[in-house]
């Protein structure tokens, strides 16, 4: 028996009032894939992500995570499904009143069956995973730099060792060097933990370094979805436009003799 796909969208449609965002979107992400969702600004990438997270109810269609329908009325099964995914919000969404340590410990404490020593060790493991020092645990979110916020948020998203990691613009707001490090970090963690990753991104470099699969949203539909090379070879005008931006980067690199 094959395991069910990690994410499965069936016929998703979204509209706000008379404004149609998505029409009839089908998407399937299997275990171990790293899917990048691309699209222009306002094409509804984040909306789709929020629907996968269950923060927004699609107007039509259904979302299945690990084979469980998100609209499943059984709240216990819902909660169990949610524990299997971690989310990295674009701004981090750290709890500003809690220290870094308590932010990462929060989902662990919510389980209400781990003792403090266990939680302390786990939090320090996660801090180590995202390459932060144990002493950073005492800082408050307001004292962190942008890159550290992302790292702490990633550590929190990984606290319950999810099988699925969702990323919203993981490298937005980081300088190129930081963003390269962060991408490498996500790639290493994905390898080590065997994660399935779905990310929304604008950054071509992130996409080319990290993604195995690409899905492109345009004109309210999923115009392409599949392995990265296949999608990049597609001749849809939006995709050509999107990846054409890579052209000047290659040119720049060539000019520098790299």
């Amino acid at each position, binding site marked *: 028996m094959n395991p069910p796909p990690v994410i499965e969208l069936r016929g998703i449609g979204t509209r706000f009032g008379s404004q149609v965002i998505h029409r009839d979107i089908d998407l399937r992400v299997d275990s171990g894939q790293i899917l990048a969702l691309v699209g222009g600004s306002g094409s509804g990438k984040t909306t789709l992500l929020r629907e996968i997270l269950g923060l927004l109810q699609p107007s039509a269609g259904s979302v299945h995570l690990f084979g469980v329908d998100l609209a499943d009325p059984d709240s216990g099964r819902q909660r169990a499904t949610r524990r299997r995914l971690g989310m990295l919000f674009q701004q981090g969404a750290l709890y*500003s*009143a809690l*220290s870094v340590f308590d932010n990462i410990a929060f989902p662990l404490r919510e389980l209400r069956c781990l003792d403090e020593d266990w939680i302390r*060790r*786990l939090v*320090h*493991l*996660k801090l180590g995973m995202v390459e932060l020092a144990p002493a950073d645990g005492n800082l408050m979110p*307001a004292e962190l730099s942008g890159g550290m916020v992302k790292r702490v948020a990633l550590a929190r998203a990984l606290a319950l*060792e999810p099988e699925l990691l969702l990323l919203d613009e993981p490298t937005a707001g980081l300088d190129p060097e930081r963003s390269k490090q962060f991408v490498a970090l996500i790639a290493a963690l994905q390898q080590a933990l065997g994660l399935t990753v779905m990310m929304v991104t604008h950054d071509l470099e992130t996409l080319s370094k990290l993604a195995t699969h690409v899905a492109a949203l345009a004109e309210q539909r999923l115009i392409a979805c599949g392995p990265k090379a296949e999608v990049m070879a597609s001749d849809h005008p939006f995709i050509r436009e999107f990846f054409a931006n890579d052209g000047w980067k290659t040119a720049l690199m060539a000019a520098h003799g790299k």
Partner: protein
Amino acid sequence: MIDPPRLQVESGQAVLSGHWTLAAMLPELAALRQQLNVAGEEARRWDLSRLERLDSAAAVLLWRTWRNAWPAALDISPLHRQVLERVADLPPTLPAGAPPRFNPVEVLGSQVLRLLAHARGMVALFGQVLLDLVYLVRHPREFPLRELSANIYKAGAQALPVTALVGFLIGVTLSYLSALQLRSLGADVFIVNILGISIIRELGPVLVAVMVAGRSGSAMTAQIGVMRVTEEIDALSVMGVSRSQRVALPKIIGLTLAMPLIVLWTSAVALLGGMLAAMLQLDLSLHYFIESLPRTVPVANVYIGLGKGVVFGFVVALVACHFGLRVRPDTESLSTNTTRSVVTAITSVILVDALFAIFTRHLGVPTL
């Protein structure tokens, strides 16, 4: 679909199989920990080669079962060994957060220092607003008129219904309770003195100040606080707009202007309520009440009431702006400062009211 974590102990050998992950362990965590404890006592060899998954939560659990040391004999795949190695590499004494200390002298000292810091901050804000006023008098074109009118409308005009309702009810209550006492003494006509002096001079201004502190003061602190959190205040500074001039000044001037008007309105409505209650309870005609009010209540009381309104409005807005500007960018600080703003505003109003009572004790007291 997912094999639950399993543990078997046979003749000194513990065999683990299935998914050893937090999610899979949760349903039967207590039983599993008990089994592990028993196994930790008995087993000499550990066979982990049949594990399907091992996450760090389970690795910590195993490591603690082994009392923070590698077991004598261990069968494990290299991948899972890495997970355990990460747990093993944790420093044995992990830095915990600073232990909470309680020292009464230190607490008292820090409280006093904080109080002084707030007093200093408010004086500094007051000074800044005065400097801004001087600047605006010399550059009248830059006066933030739109903000000022918006503040007068929000804190003044929109507060009229609720202050009227409360004022009316207080007037009725006061009149009704006094009437019961006065009638037993046969001193019915003194209801005019009692209501006139108490409402115009004392109750009206204090009542309004308390209501406005709760209604507009908290709103001002929260608004400035959120502007701090979202860095709007910083954006203003960057554009060369003084935050005290554009944010604090219109609020302080607005409330200082609006408050005496609300006081006048509320006192009038409270007197109306008292009048009606007196008419129903003591058969005192409205005509008599209105006619004898100026005779029994010297006009100085009205000025004192209005003066209190000006000062209270200024105090409430100054306190609200001070605490709003002190909000640090986190949610806890926002709620703490909003609470402090309202509590401090009401306390200061009562304090100032006591000062008023002392310094105006010879003014406006009717001579019988």
